[in-house]
């Protein structure tokens, strides 16, 4: 049951984000771009870091 | 009453709240700065004192920034006239204040005694001087400042900067300093133990008693000081400039509001009660109660100045009829309405997360933790 409520809460947040995104995209397209762009930059950079760990692991113990 | 008059009055009150918030929160940090050399005899003791406010000084300082921003947004003409008129004093305030963040952040970064002593004295200066200037600025507002306007509202200050340190302003400056020492001491009592605690407690008692005595002195002085009275002016709800009113000056006129509304006497009483009961609370080792009573004392003291002057905010001693009042220096209705909306949303939010931050960092600051924590000041 707890998971279901969590699911509902997230669903609600997602809907809210979509509505806000539509409004913001309409009147403040660059603000919207900043929001999306910043999230993207942070996540790609984070993923790049995690990827390096994998590469280093490969280097240390190359798969046979 | 029309909406604009209500908004004007509301923003006068909100500005008061901000000035109180600033005095309480920033004054507390500055009090710690002033006391740093005296409650801490060894380097570790000083670091303990510094770290009681370490996580909070930056957030607290925003009260100061917000105070400036709110005057700018809600009373642009006060911001313009006061900041430029009190130029040299404002610069001294600014220069001492901008050393403070560096003092916190850089002091313990290097081990040298000379380095640390130098920053300690910087922190002393940047705690002591701004609080004196803060109080002296309020004293000067009560006293009147020599300025006048051109037809296009360009302001001219005609006094010298020495006159800003007149005897009355020095007394109000010392009231402010005493209260900041009281609050700094109260914070130190709450977050330290041992020798630092004991010395801080003495500072609280001293600050409270001297503050109360000086506040009384300032009160008696004000009854002889020339006060300002609005004789003729446009309707408070009208859009106006300070060029359209008539103001007279009469000795003791600052007490007229109290005469007309005797309930206002409760405001200075609150100031005295806060300081004196707070001293008792400190004597009885109740740091949290001491802190809150000190906050009430600030509310009483600043409230007293506001109650005496209303609707005046910055009277002109050289051309009284061009004095700045709530009605003629305030922003437009539209701006005030928007600002009210933002304030209503964000001030509760700020209070909520600020108290959370204090909750997270609760408890006594111990010398062992500081020496182990590389992030400590």
């Amino acid at each position, binding site marked *: 049951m707890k998971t279901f409520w969590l699911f509902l809460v997230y669903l609600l947040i997602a809907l809210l984000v979509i509505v806000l995104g539509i409004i913001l995209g309409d009147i403040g*397209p*660059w*603000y919207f771009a*900043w929001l999306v*762009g910043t999230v*993207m930059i*942070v*996540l790609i*950079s*984070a993923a790049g*870091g*995690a990827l390096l*760990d994998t*590469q280093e692991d490969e280097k240390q113990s190359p798969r046979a | 009453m029309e909406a604009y008059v209500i908004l004007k009055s509301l923003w006068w009150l909100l500005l008061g709240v901000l000035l109180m918030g600033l005095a309480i929160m920033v004054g507390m940090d500055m009090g710690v700065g002033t006391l740093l050399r005296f409650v801490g005899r060894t380097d570790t003791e000083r670091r303990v004192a510094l770290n009681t406010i*370490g996580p909070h000084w*930056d*957030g607290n*300082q*925003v009260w100061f*920034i917000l105070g*400036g*921003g709110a005057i*700018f947004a*809600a009373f*642009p003409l006060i*911001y*313009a*006239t*006061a*900041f*430029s008129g009190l*130029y*040299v004093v*404002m*610069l001294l305030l*600014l220069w001492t204040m901008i050393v403070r*963040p*560096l003092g916190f952040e850089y002091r313990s970064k*290097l081990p040298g005694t000379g380095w640390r002593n130098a920053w300690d004295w910087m922190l002393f200066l940047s705690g002591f001087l701004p609080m004196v200037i803060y109080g002296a600025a309020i004293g000067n507002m009560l006293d009147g400042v020599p300025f006048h306007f*051109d*037809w*296009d*509202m*360009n*302001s*001219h200050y005609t006094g010298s900067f020495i006159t800003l340190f007149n005897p009355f302003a020095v007394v109000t400056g010392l009231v402010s300093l005493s209260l900041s020492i009281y609050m700094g001491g109260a914070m130190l009592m709450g977050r330290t133990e041992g020798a630092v605690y004991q010395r801080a407690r003495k500072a609280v008692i001293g600050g409270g008693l001297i503050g109360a005595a000086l506040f009384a002195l300032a009160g008696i002085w004000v009854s002889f000081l020339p006060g300002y009275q609005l004789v003729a002016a446009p309707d408070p709800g009208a859009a106006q*400039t300070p060029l359209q009113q008539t103001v007279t000056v009469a000795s003791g006129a600052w007490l007229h509001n109290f005469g007309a509304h005797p309930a206002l006497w409760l405001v200075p009483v609150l100031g005295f009660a806060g300081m004196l009961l707070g001293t008792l609370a400190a004597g009885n080792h109740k740091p949290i109660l001491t802190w809150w009573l000190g906050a009430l004392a600030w509310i009483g003291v600043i409230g007293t100045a506001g109650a005496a002057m209303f609707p005046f905010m910055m009277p002109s001693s050289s051309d009284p009829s061009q004095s700045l009042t709530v009605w003629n220096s305030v*922003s*437009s209705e*539209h*701006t005030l309405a*928007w600002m009210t909306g*933002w304030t209503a949303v*964000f001030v509760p939010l700020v209070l909520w*997360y*600020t108290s959370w931050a204090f909750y*997270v*960092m609760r408890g006594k600051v111990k010398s062992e933790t500081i020496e182990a*924590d590389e*992030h400590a000041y």
Partner: protein
Amino acid sequence: MINGTVVALSRWQFAMTALYHFLFVPLTLGMTFLLAAMETVYVTTGKQIYRDMAQFWGKLFLINFALGVSTGLTMEFEFGTNWSFYSGFVGDIFGAPLAIEGLMAFFMESTFVGLMAFGWQRLTKVQHLIVTYLVALGSNLSALWILVANGFMQDPQGAKFNPLTMRMELHDFPALLFSPDAQDKFVHTSIAGYVTASVFVLGVSAYYMLHQRHMALAKRSFRMAALFGVLATAGVITLGDALGFVGGHAQPSKLAAMEAMWHTEAPPASFNVAAIPSQREQRNLWTLQIPCVLTPLITHTMTQTVPGVDTLEAQAVQRIKNGIPAVEALKELSGNPNDAQAMAQFDAHQADLGYGFLVQRYAPNQDVALATSGDIAKAARDVIPQVAPIFWSFRVMVAMGLLMLAFFIAAVIFTLRNDAEKHRWLLKLALWMIPVPFVACEMGWLVAELGRQPWTVYQMLPTWMAASSHSVGYMVFSLAGFLLLYSIFIAVEMYLMVKFIRLGPSAHGSESPTRGGGSAGTYAPAAMLK
């Protein structure tokens, strides 16, 4: 009445203190999000090294942050202390974003930065991560509101002049907040901060890699900063173009100065790659041109005309003539707000009020009614800012931007192959790149603010009348004070920064077993050793 020397000194003081402030701001804007990215990896993978990274870079960040906060206080004071007429004239609309900045952004940033530094032991991993994100969001929202305020000075949207209060007043808040200039400017500036932080982290990491120190930390920081930087640089260039597009329409005089366009050309106009502009002769003494490039660059079409200096000055003459009755009427209204005739005259001419103010400077006794056609011509010439410094600042900024893009692309290629440490030229270059984004940021501000001249608020309030009426002595005193204090500050900051970079992460007593690893390339993730 107005002393030209005082205005000039006030301008110098504001420019110096603002440029100085902006040495520290970009690093704050970008570093906070980079720290958040590092901490995100720590929280999601649980690898200790990322915590060390967040803490080490966090320490450098805080050294920088303290000065950002300090010098920011100056900015908040300076509008009132030195630009009092300006403050009274636009405080109603300009003060609002500044106050909201404090309320919404600065409180958030400052409260949580304390927890970020002191809360490692007291908060859960996720709580601390959220705190770090809130610091990043707070610092960038601060920038948002400041740039909304600046956007208003560049392109005054959402305001109206009220002759009863003799000032500009807010009448449309959303128009102020969503002004295209404010939007582009915010994103451009914020992302320029990301670029600055990336170059900084990349440079310092390269320094460690060159000396084979702290390899685990340096390689990961290098990788993250390179990716962060390449995306941010692309964004900064995109937004720079958008800003030129929007600004070109809102501020044709700035655009003409940026491109040293003295004469209006039939589209498609040619682009000056380099030039030696002469303000006095109103022409370029020498140019290097590419034909047909300017028009599509600025207007994104081939047919729209881009007005040159000659056209703009001719337009200014008309607007000044139309503005003179507005100033006269305003003077009447100042004495008697109920003067219906003056109000009608003001309403008819208020669109050009600012141009009326512009000629007031040259009119005898500063009475616009007495202005001669010679005075008007002088004022009309004023509407073009100083071309040469704007033209060249702009070119330096763009060149630095392109240089950084090229550099980041190279860095990304090598770091993705995980052999950046083998290319010593790249690492050395990375070190040399550290000053580049700072120069670019400062040049950007020079273009923005010099290009706005002669106005403080574009076409509304001329700079010459915006300053406080101080004596020269006061200005010399304050300038000397700032010079002294700020010189000491930068020396102390640089000393600490270099010292803590040299000491490296090991100096901050981290418990990670990987720190200070002497042998090159060999590294073991902290998690594996546990």
